């Protein structure tokens, strides 16, 4: 850890910090929260380490106020609010740990409490985009430092000594000169009366004094409860008089209910009521799809009742969506010019002058999130008030959407965030909570809406479906031309009818930000219309892009007779910050390019590190092969080597995976490892099996039997993770998502090395058996 340091280095901070958006602070005052700092502007620290993040540009920005996040009881128990959602990344532990570190709290005396959804109070709560540590490392440190300062001021007053003579040390404030000491609990009441210090004057701890940050010795706060069944997920909420509901939804996206016959359903033991659920027209954003709800005394009865429903649907405009034909459409689009989104040099001319042109066309189908916990929510709506309990990644957004859907004031909506049994982007969309709210309002009772696994797969906001076509021109063994056409329906189509181009945040995930040092580069985005709900899936467009680009590098290496790793490093080129001035909207994960440039030295470093540690070039048994891939996403750098073994029947196993990640300054290396280990499994799942197909507008898959994911008996035998120690003052970057994208191309390149078969369409399925 090298982030922020002692007070001498904080000089000049005052000039550098920009606290803007005074009007929003005025709003806070109106709510009785005077003294809170809403940093709507980028967070800057001392000039020597002036890193800026996009945190302030997120809806509702960042709130830095210890009185919002920290409470100290008379017995010394420190309660710290976790305002981001826990879906397995460890954030519910990591962010409060940062506060505890900086306030000198003893972690064993810290209680973590989950914040409800209230972005005015807590700042942005969208737990997505691998942003939590990157946006909150510094604000959480500032919150902790503020609380520590207030405790120190209170002790100094009590002892009538200058504040610089006292110091907080592990849950106490001490006065060295006299040996006096007071516990945080003894000081709590007085400290609360102290004014909140200005962010600009805060002294942050010297990282060499850190007890917790960067060490990886603290387990997640929910560990014990998870192992005893006491941890509470969305479906575990039980309220007196609560009804259990499942919903039959239109099988085609954009379809609607015509009529239903509930006679048989109502005869099912335990079924209490059958009723229509309001649906929204396509594109429906995060609003419910509508359908027929079966209300029962338990979920089992509701499911049985639903099975007995007879429903007539109007399938609507997407009734002809069919995956084989759609793939052909995407391929045709990728073979013709499209909207130019990055252009440097003359790619047509360079391709014509090339000795050799290598063309690769890569297909990646839709796939579903299938988090272990299917969507579920509990709502209790009484009059114009609503209370929700749900595993949502966006509690603030959920609150807004519930208010809008029920047409009640947002202040009347409480969103309680449970643990999430996996999220992966699915639970950024709160349609399931809105369904529960609508049903509770109508029934006048608390309702739990449980999605079955079939509901989850058939009505997901799916990962897009894409064709990535790359043409590379070589001259004298060097790549001189690179044309990449990316065609895929956009997530924006879920919000705006008629969307045919990808949004900047999708183009910026591996297409326009390709880091290669090639003179002639052109990136294009031909049109594609969506016929189902498309949504964020962990790593998003980086998955198809890394698959295509990193496969292509290996294909070029093959064509040029070069080692794939050497070719990769040559194409990355010299250590530099990639000049993307030719790109109109770079996006860059919402981060300013000045703090988070594409740094090819760091990109090269993870390639070299993984090659070294992972034994690139080592001899492997017959039928085995090594593949390598690197990708920058969520402003982190990550490279993976996969060793694959393919037997004579075409069955593949993965003996070993090595991954190097550079995510800048980090909080909990133990959780970084767990994320990367898991990303390898998710990458292997999507590469081997991940495919959702449509016929007659309907999803063809239903459950884990026809939409399989990797199980333990096929998981990699060894997964090694190497975390690059951050150089001094490297800003924090993403961890939750970057691990997935390089896995599939590394695997595919390994399969080529093992068998000579080049796979260009995922999933692998039975392609190796042919």
């Amino acid at each position, binding site marked *: 850890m090298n982030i922020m340091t002692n007070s001498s280095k904080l000089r000049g901070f005052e000039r550098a910090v920009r606290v803007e958006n005074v009007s929003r602070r005025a709003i806070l005052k109106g709510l009785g929260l005077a003294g809170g700092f809403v940093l709507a502007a980028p967070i800057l620290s001392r000039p020597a380490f002036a890193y800026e993040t996009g945190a302030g540009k997120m809806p509702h920005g960042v709130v830095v106020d210890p009185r919002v996040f920290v409470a100290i009881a008379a017995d010394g128990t420190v309660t710290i609010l976790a305002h981001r959602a826990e879906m397995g990344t460890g954030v519910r532990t990591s962010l409060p740990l940062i506060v505890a570190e900086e306030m000198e709290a003893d972690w064993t005396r810290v209680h973590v409490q989950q914040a409800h959804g209230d972005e005015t109070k807590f700042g942005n709560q969208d737990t997505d985009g691998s942003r939590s540590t990157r946006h909150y490392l510094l604000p959480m440190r500032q919150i902790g430092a503020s609380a520590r300062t207030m405790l120190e001021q209170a002790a100094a007053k009590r002892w009538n000594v200058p504040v610089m003579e006292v110091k907080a040390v592990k849950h106490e404030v001490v006065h060295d000169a006299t040996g006096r000491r007071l516990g945080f609990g003894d000081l709590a009441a007085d400290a609360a009366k102290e004014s909140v210090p200005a962010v600009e004057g805060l002294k942050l701890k010297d990282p060499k004094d850190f007890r917790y940050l960067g060490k990886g010795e603290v387990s997640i706060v929910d560990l014990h409860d998870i192992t005893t069944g006491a941890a509470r997920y969305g*479906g575990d909420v039980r309220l007196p008089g609560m009804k259990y509901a499942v919903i039959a939804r239109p099988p085609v996206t954009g379809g609607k209910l015509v009529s239903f016959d509930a006679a048989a359903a109502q005869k099912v033991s335990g079924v209490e009521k059958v009723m229509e659920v309001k649906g929204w027209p396509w594109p429906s954003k995060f609003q419910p799809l509508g359908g027929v709800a079966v209300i029962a005394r338990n979920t089992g009865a509701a499911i049985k009742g639903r099975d007995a429903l007879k429903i007539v649907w109007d399938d609507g405009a997407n009734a002809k969506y069919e995956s084989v034909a759609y793939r052909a459409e995407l391929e045709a689009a990728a073979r013709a010019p499209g909207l130019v989104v990055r252009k440097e040099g003359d790619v047509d001319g360079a391709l014509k002058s090339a000795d050799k042109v290598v063309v690769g066309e890569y297909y990646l189908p839709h796939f579903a999130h299938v988090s272990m916990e299917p969507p579920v929510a509990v709502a209790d709506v009484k009059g114009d008030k609503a209370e929700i309990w749900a595993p949502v990644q966006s509690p603030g957004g959920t609150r807004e959407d519930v208010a809008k859907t029920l047409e009640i004031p947002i202040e009347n909506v409480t969103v309680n965030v449970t643990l999430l049994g996996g999220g992966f982007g699915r639970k950024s969309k709160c349609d399931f909570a809105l369904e529960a709210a609508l049903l509770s309002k109508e029934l006048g009772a608390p309702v739990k809406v449980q999605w079955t696994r079939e509901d989850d797969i058939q009505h997901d906001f799916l990962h897009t479906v894409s064709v990535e076509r790359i043409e590379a021109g070589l001259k004298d063994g060097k790549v001189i031309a690179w044309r990449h056409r990316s065609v895929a329906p956009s997530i924006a189509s879920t919000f705006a009818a008629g969307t045919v181009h990808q949004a900047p945040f999708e183009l910026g995930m591996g297409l326009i930000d390709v880091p290669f040092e090639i003179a002639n580069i052109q990136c294009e985005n031909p049109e594609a219309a969506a016929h189902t709900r498309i949504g964020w899936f962990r790593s998003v467009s980086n998955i198809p892009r890394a698959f295509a680009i990193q496969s292509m590098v290996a294909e070029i290496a093959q064509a040029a007779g070069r080692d794939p790793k050497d070719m990769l490093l040559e194409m990355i080129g010299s250590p530099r910050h990639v000049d993307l001035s030719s790109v109109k909207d770079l996006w860059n994960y919402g981060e300013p390019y000045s703090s988070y440039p594409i740094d090819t030295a760091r990109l090269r470093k993870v390639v070299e590190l993984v090659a070294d540690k992972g034994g690139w070039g080592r001899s492997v048994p017959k039928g085995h092969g090594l593949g390598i891939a690197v990708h920058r996403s969520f402003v982190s750098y990550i490279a993976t080597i996969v060793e694959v073994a393919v037997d004579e029947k075409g069955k593949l196993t993965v003996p070993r995976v090595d991954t190097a990640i550079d995510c800048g300054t980090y909080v909990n290396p133990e959780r970084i490892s*767990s994320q990367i280990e898991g990303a390898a499994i998710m990458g292997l799942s999507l590469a081997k099996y991940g495919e959702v197909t449509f016929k007659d507008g309907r999803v063809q898959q239903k459950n884990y039997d026809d939409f399989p994911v990797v199980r333990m008996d096929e998981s990699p035998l060894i997964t090694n993770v190497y975390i690059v120690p951050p150089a001094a003052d490297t800003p924090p970057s993403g961890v939750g998502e970057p691990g997935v994208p390089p896995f599939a191309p590394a695997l595919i390149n390994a399969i080529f090395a093992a068998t000579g078969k080049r796979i260009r369409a995922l999933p692998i399925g039975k392609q190796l058996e042919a």
Partner: protein
Amino acid sequence: MIKLKINGQEQSWDGDPNLPLLWFLRDEVGLTGTKFGCGQALCGACTVMVDNDAVRACITSVSDVADRQVTTIEGLHPTGDHPVQKAWRQVNVPQCGFCQAGQIMQAAALLASNAKPSHDQIREAMAGNICRCGCYQRIENAVHLASTGV
């Protein structure tokens, strides 16, 4: 009226005898540690022990377990210190944690029948339990640790 014992306590049910045990546990008894993941015995999130065998509660009806002893994650050990639970914590297995009750019950059943399972036996016995977060390597390490003494 169906009678059964859950975590040592008598329970009875006079509703639909075909109600899956999973929903009886979760919605009628209020033991929510057992999770719903697929409803088709494909993922193992709902694994409980019936007598000493691991079963999938989502496809086991209440009538199937009449007069039997059902153990859920809540009843595995009074203070949550079964060797498998302890090993799980030592290895920091969980990410989201949702599948872990089922994984732990499956592992406990495995060790009850085979105190020292081999690497391959662990991988085979645990293959019915999906972890979408991908904690498999740690699960295997934890089962191994539990079998060798925590």
